[in-house]
């Protein structure tokens, strides 16, 4: 049986990651739509589009870091 504080910490970590992921997804959807417009107008901009799409990934990465720090506080951190 998982105690309530562990569950709370896990939920907090999940929330941090989910918020970052949602924010990234929202930003990428907007950038993606604009990027399609740009590519339709001008050839050879695919590389720049990829970069612009990668920019908001910072949010999910920071969300991941926060989640990691929260889980670390339980002493269960690690990739393995």
């Amino acid at each position, binding site marked *: 049986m998982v105690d309530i504080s562990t569950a709370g910490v896990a939920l907090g970590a999940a929330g941090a990651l989910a918020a970052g992921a949602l924010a990234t997804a929202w930003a990428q959807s907007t950038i993606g739509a604009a990027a399609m417009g740009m590519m339709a107008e001008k050839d050879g901009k695919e*590389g720049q589009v990829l*970069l612009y799409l*990668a920019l908001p990934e910072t949010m999910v*990465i*920071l969300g991941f*870091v926060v989640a990691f720090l929260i889980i670390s506080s339980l002493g269960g*951190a*690690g*990739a393995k």
Partner: protein
Amino acid sequence: MVLKLEPMTKARVVCMQADTPRVVDALYDFGTIHMTRSRQGTPGTPLQEFREISEELIFLRSTEKALGIRLTPEAGALEPRERLLAESKKVRKEIEELKHDEERLAEYRARMAQLKAQIDELKPFENLSVSPATFSQAKTLSLHYFELKSNRKEFEKDLAKLPVETLFVQGAGREYALVAAGNAKKALLLEKASKHAVELAVPKLAENESFAGALAGLTGELGEIERDTAKLSGRQAAYSSKNASRIARLRCQLEEYGKKAELPNRFGRTQALEIIEGWVTSRKFKELERKILEVTGNKATVEAHATKKNAPTVLKNPPLVRRFEFMVKFFSLPNQAEYDPTLFISITFPIIFGMIFGDIGYGLLTMALASFLYLKAQKGFWRHLAGMMLLSGFFTTVWGFVFGEFMGVEDIFGYELHAIIHRSGPGVPILMVAALLVGVIHLGFGLAVGAYTNWRHGHKSHAYAKMSWIVLEAAFLLAGINLFAPYIFNSPTVIVALVLASVVALYKFEGVPAVVEIPGLLSNLLSYLRIMALGLSGVILAQIVNRIPLKSSLESILAAAAAGDFAGVAIGILPAIFFGVVLLLGHAVALGLGLFEAGIQSLRLHYVEFFSKFYHGGGIPFVPLREK
């Protein structure tokens, strides 16, 4: 020095207008001048031959469009202009002849449509044995020819009570009926018949001509015209395929002459002189001067202007570094006041790439892929990309040894790897600190370059501000160490003092905007945590792929073989093959994702975080005047 841009000189050539064609040829031969529009005198006019070339170009382009030619001929030596113009005129004659064919084709098509309509009209009468004259000659009888809509029985039933004679005719999958009635019963007949049939108009034919005979004649004529049409169309298609490359080559070569002929549009002119301006690399200025004086018989002046305003950018890097130039060009070329950051990128990009991807197996695979690409691509973007990947793969392997990882496991075929930093368990916080440390060094270096650049250009307050940012960054680093490893450094007072000193300095040298930007530096630093985060996700992905039970599957096959259980061996082979394929695909996907993510995110750290500390770009690309 690799960091500095190629020095540029603005050249101004003044020559006699009579020498303009020779000077234009000389500028093209020179091949390394970036032309600008001269503001001296009145605007120049194109060379005399421009009109003729333009007319031929319009003709050739419209011919290409009409014949559906979409070829880009390979680059080759420019043929003499007169020969090209003569050949273009020859093509014009050939096209005129083809145009006659086109007119004949239009006539044939119109006749074919006419014949088809006549044949359609005659087709229902094909099997009717009655002569066409019978219809016009009948006086007391009314003759009608119907195409039946419903079945024959119903038609017969409805007409049964009328005094009529009916002859049914089959043809072309349909049924027709020739009905003869007295003139008095004509109206009644038409009313009854209209329920089940449609009356057909009798085509007008020549005297003594039968329906079948007329139809055969028309069909014969149609066949003949169709054959002639195919022949003419074939001639057009054959001309198009035979002459496509010739026409495209003519067009491309004349385009080059067209560009040359309109080049004087960018010159300035007085009553007798032509004024030409452009940028050349300083070391080539003397060569330009020599060339111009040679073609004009010393009747020209070539001056160097002491200005750097709007000078185009030419990067100057050795081959090893040059492969990273596309990354700088992709962002923006350096302007004349800046250093070329290609050297920095060529060092830090592979290191950060390797730190994100860090795996011996994937690193070696990346190097193998890059070597293959390097051998395949002779030049251009792919060749540069391959060279860059080779270096990045090397650093991925080096970091793989640091992390002790080979395709997601910590041994190479049983030989244990001893990691310096583990990307799991307690090693993760160390990795986090390492990522931040890379950020501190990377940003600090960017700020130092920014400080030096500002100092060199006499912007001393900005240079001091950049140094203050470095102090603030050092304070952040110490705060991090204080938080995560207090046994190394534990002095909050020093940290607070450094922060306060740098904030005051920033306010003094750059005002409130600099103070407002302080959280931005923290955000830049935290951004480097992606090195750790992406590294971890890569490891986890590789570990998930490694869970595919190929090993146990192979062991069970070997055990069955040892026990002589051949049925067990046969049963085990298929799953083993399946697991093997999935394992390979899984690692291929992990490799692809790793290459993509490490590349994009490393590039992002350079463009957004690193460049923002010293680099603005906005340089003008150097476009040398030369034949394609």
